[in-house]
Each structure stands twice: as structure tokens, then as C-alpha cells.
């Protein structure tokens, strides 16, 4: 399978994400320029973190008008896998591929620290290499990660099991202290109803090698690989062997 990482003016996790996918996960990965119209036949589009268009107006508000994003929208509508990390998540919200919006962190601080998130559902294409209830230690780095949705939307998200990650403590308990940015219902990541689009605030690419202090982020990339390569019988992993990390 082939990954594509979209680069906007102001992206700053684009190379880290390409490195994690290409060098760590060992999958072909191309950098996609936001002004192009061609997704180059990728199987999964990743919108990386950063400050696209300097966060002008609102985080992610301008990036959604990039020509390539119209292709990404069509790709997602056709069932293509799209992963939005941090600013990528914000773009997906502004684009309307995911419901809700981001508010400034509750303490009005830019937060750059390791957090723990709990996998709420391990049946998604983004978590199947992990387990329900598993705690991942992954860093965040954002100013606007305080997830908000009107009560009606939140109800739908919970009913349809679209909340995939919640902020928790090291033991997996969802506590007020662990919810560092004040997100509604401790939401760290959600998927769309169809299950092919996911956004999360933590940066899995920054937690993909032991050298970086955590390898937990690989679970998300490994899940995508597992999901997308499973569809091609020739490359199916050996039966009975559940890949956890790679």
C-alpha cells in the first residue's frame, strides 16, 4: 500500500510523518503538494500537523480550500482512508469530513507534552492493530485542541461509536486532570460514520521510534497497513498471527 502526506504552506510535521511511514513502517510514501490535483494513486491520505496558512482566520479554515483538498474530499466520499493529525484533524473538521469544531485549549496555553489516550474501539481501520482499552502514550502540540460539538452531534458520535480515542491517565482512567485541553467528553480522536476518515490531536509520528520515547504511535499506522493490505489476498499476513506493531 502507498501513503500520501499532504503538504500545505505552514505544515511542519510533513517530513516527520513521511519518515515514520516510509522509514519506520517501511511503506511507499509520497509527499503531495496542496496545489496539485493528483493524489498519485495513494491508498491512504495523511494530513500532517503544523500551522497551515499560519492558522489565519481559524486553524484549518483556509487549507480546506486548497485544490488538492477537493480531491481528498472526493477520495473520502469514495471510501478512501484519510488520517488527520493535529492541524490535519482541524482541517477535516473545517472541511466537514468530520463533525464538530476546535476551541482554544481551556487554559489558553499552547500544550506540548506527552499525553495518554485510550483506544475506545479496536475494530476501526485506524486501531485494529491495538486493543480496546489499550493506553497509548503520544505527544500533543497544539493551541486549539479543545474539541467541541453541539449536544445533538455529541449524542450521535457516542451512539455510533465514533469516539475512537479519549484522553486518560497512564492507567487508562478518564479523569478531569488527564483532559488537558478541556475537550468535550475527553475526545482526542473521532472517526466519521462510515469509518474511513479519522482525526486525532496527538501526533503518532512523534511516537513511532523508541529513540523518541514512545513507539505507541505505530499502532495507528500499523492498523492502517493491516486494514489496507488485508484487502489484497497476496499480501495478507500469515494466519493466526495478529500484527501488533508492524
Amino acid at each position, binding site marked *: 500500500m502507498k501513503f500520501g502526506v499532504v503538504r500545505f504552506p505552514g505544515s511542519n510535521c510533513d517530513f516527520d510523518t513521511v519518515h515514520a511511514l516510509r522509514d519506520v513502517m517501511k511503506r511507499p510514501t509520497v509527499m503531495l503538494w496542496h496545489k496539485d490535483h493528483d493524489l498519485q494513486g495513494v491508498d491512504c491520505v495523511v494530513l500532517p500537523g503544523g500551522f497551515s496558512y499560519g492558522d489565519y*482566520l481559524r486553524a484549518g479554515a483556509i487549507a480546506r480550500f486548497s485544490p488538492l483538498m477537493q480531491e481528498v474530499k472526493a477520495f473520502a466520499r469514495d471510501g478512501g482512508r484519510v488520517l488527520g493529525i493535529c492541524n490535519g484533524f482541524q482541517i477535516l473538521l473545517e472541511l466537514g469530513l468530520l463533525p464538530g469544531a476546535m476551541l*482554544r485549549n481551556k*487554559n489558553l496555553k499552547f500544550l506540548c507534552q506527552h499525553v495518554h489516550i485510550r483506544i475506545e474501539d479496536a475494530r476501526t481501520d485506524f486501531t485494529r492493530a491495538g486493543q480496546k482499552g489499550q493506553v497509548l502514550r503520544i505527544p500533543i502540540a497544539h493551541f486549539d485542541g479543545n474539541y467541541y460539538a453541539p449536544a445533538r452531534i455529541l449524542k450521535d458520535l457516542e451512539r455510533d461509536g465514533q469516539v475512537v480515542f479519549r484522553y486518560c491517565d497512564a492507567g487508562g482512567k478518564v479523569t478531569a486532570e488527564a483532559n488537558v485541553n478541556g475537550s468535550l467528553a475527553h475526545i482526542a480522536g473521532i472517526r466519521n460514520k462510515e469509518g474511513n476518515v479519522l482525526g486525532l490531536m496527538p501526533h503518532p509520528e512523534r511516537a513511532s521510534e523508541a529513540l523518541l520515547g514512545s513507539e505507541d504511535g505505530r499502532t495507528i499506522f500499523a492498523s492502517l497497513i493491516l486494514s489496507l493490505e488485508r484487502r489484497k489476498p497476496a499480501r495478507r499476513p500469515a494466519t493466526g498471527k495478529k500484527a501488533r506493531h508492524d
Partner: protein
Amino acid sequence: MKVRILVSFKDSVLDPQGQTVKNALHTMGYAAVTDVRQGKVFELDLEGATRKDAETLVPEIARRVLANPIIEKFDWEILKGR
């Protein structure tokens, strides 16, 4: 024509920046201030637009780009022209 668009958080959405300003005002002794809401102001020059054009155009622009309707509301007024 020149129009001014004011974008601010909906009443149902917490405005932490407004709260912080309110706290600062209290620290300064302005006890009469009970609430502060912070917003953004946009001034747009519209070429050859009539009031009727603006009434269609401005709300459309505000809804599609300037405000995020999930968390924000907007007001607008004509500053110059008619």
C-alpha cells in the same frame, strides 16, 4: 460599499479568552463588568454592490468562510454606501 462583519462565539460556547479579559478587568477593579465576549471584526469593500446584493453576499461569505457556524455567530452592518 463597505461592510463590517462581527464574528463572535455563540452564547452556548464558552469563550475562554473573553473570560480571561473579564478576570483581568476584575483585577483592575472594574467590578461592574459581569461578562466579556471576544470576537473578530472584518471590513469588506464590495465593488458595485447594492444593499440588496450585500444582503445576499455578506451572510453567505460569513457562513461559508468568516465564521464557523458550529461555534460562531455573526452580525453585519453597512459602513459606507447604500
